[in-house]
């Protein structure tokens, strides 16, 4: 059952000051409303994983590992590989994270990242089929939040994309219905590069890439996932407040603009590692 989260530990006076200054166009860390925090992307940080990447978004830190295996396809998609995305809010990342099975926040995070990848056709699942109906490649994307200073969705989506681009799978041969894996590797069939951009609404202001203090006071957030061609592939509203049609329009514009810079950064990080 989903329950209203308790108020974040922020003094009322601090809360009010934060909101008032954001409404005047000044953010707590000195950024302008449409300014993203500095992004650092490092690919291949976990060599044992088939693909990996760490993203620092200001002080937020997210690690994504990709593991690859063979398995059975889902019965309703016998000719497609399997993609599963999971997120762990690791207790070391925040005083509010607790050990245990994923809570609704972790599940929402994983499912929003999953939708961006799946709906944009980022992974060519058809190419990941080995024998229709019985053997396919299974790709596990595991999101590991290491330090939580806000905007986990964007940081996780960036890290997941970088890790998929960084991943290498074994080449194989079919010998009479037997799959023989070789010691040669090739990249995963990545066809699209979706980027998630989250904008928060605080009072009457819209700010991109909210940090944790801003998330504490936001009314609502809207994540827009944009593909290579500037088309919208996924959206998710969050938070206890509302948004208007006009605000949505501005948020989409923001996403279209910001996604291009970020996509470039992912590609640079992935190429640098090669």
């Amino acid at each position, binding site marked *: *059952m*989903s*329950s*209203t989260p*308790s*108020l974040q530990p922020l003094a009322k006076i601090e809360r009010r000051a934060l909101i008032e200054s954001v409404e005047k166009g000044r953010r707590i860390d000195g950024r302008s409303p449409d300014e993203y925090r500095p992004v650092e992307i490092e690919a291949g940080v976990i060599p044992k994983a088939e693909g990996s990447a760490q993203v620092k978004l200001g002080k937020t830190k997210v690690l994504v590992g990709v593991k690859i295996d063979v398995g059975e396809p889902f*019965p*309703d998609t016998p000719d497609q590989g399997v993609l599963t995305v999971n997120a762990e809010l690791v207790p070391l990342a925040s005083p509010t994270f607790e050990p245990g099975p*994923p809570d*609704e*926040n972790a*599940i*929402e995070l*994983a*499912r929003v990242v999953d*939708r961006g990848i*799946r*709906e*944009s056709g980022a992974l060519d699942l058809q190419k990941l089929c080995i024998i229709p109906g019985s053997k396919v490649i299974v790709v596990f994307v595991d999101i590991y939040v290491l330090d939580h200073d806000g905007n986990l969705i964007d940081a996780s989506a960036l890290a997941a994309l970088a890790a998929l681009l960084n991943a290498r799978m074994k080449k194989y041969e079919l010998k009479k219905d037997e799959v023989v894996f070789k010691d040669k590797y090739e990249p995963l069939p990545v066809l699209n590069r979706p980027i998630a951009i989250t904008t928060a609404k605080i009072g009457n202001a819209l700010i991109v890439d909210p940090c944790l203090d801003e998330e504490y006071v936001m009314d609502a957030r*809207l994540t827009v996932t944009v*593909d290579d061609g*500037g*088309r*919208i*592939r*996924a*959206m*998710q*509203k*969050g*938070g*206890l*407040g*509302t*948004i*208007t*049609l006009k605000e*949505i*329009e501005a948020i*989409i514009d923001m996403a*279209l603009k910001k996604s291009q810079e970020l996509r470039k950064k992912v590609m640079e990080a992935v190429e640098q590692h090669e």
Partner: protein
Amino acid sequence: MSSYNKVEAPKKLIKNGLRVDGRKPEELRPIKMEVGVLDKADGSAYVEHGRNKILVAVYGPREAHPKHIALPDRAALRCRYHMAPFSTEERRSPAPSRRDMELSKVIREALEPSILTQLYPRTTIDVFIEILQSDGGTRCAGITGASLALADAGIPLKDMVAACAVGKVDGKLVLDLNDLEDKYGEADMPIALMPNTGKITLLQMDGDLSTEEFNTAIEMAVEACKKIGQMQRESIRRKYLQGDKIA
């Protein structure tokens, strides 16, 4: 899915300008609403939206259990979206799925802006949504029903919340997707709206839309939500103003 329950994918989702269930692109499915259908609940509603059959109960404001979930300055809203094991083609496990958990969260966030929770600090308001039969668009019909049940419970609301999905099938924007259209279409976008203020309380999307398509789609959904909001109003009137002179 076993072969027993398999449903063949339709070759075309739009034929001669009509959809798989015979509707026009901008046509809603038939909707029935009734409030006060359960005896024990403080508020309740039953919604039939096309082939969706949904029962909602509201309990509260009541004492918070366990105590630690209580909030000092307002009521905690709790929400459970759940699908009955027999509500889909193939039986589903009654244990809450990851999907159910995400939907419980977004539905709570869709209802919360409409409720004056500050009036009832340290209590809970519990919303239970049971999908008895599903055919696409259950989260939207669930929200529509939940808002009715909240009103039926006498909980002070700023506005109703009405919800409807819009999407794209065979390259065309269509209103209120059914299950087949959701599964085999190109985009699905559920929206919840407070009809009087025009404020959006839920927005999700998956699929493929250009910004122009998005703008048209959201307008279609907003109009539909307003219509559904009108039906909500009428169903409350039917229960509380029947035989009464004030209309």
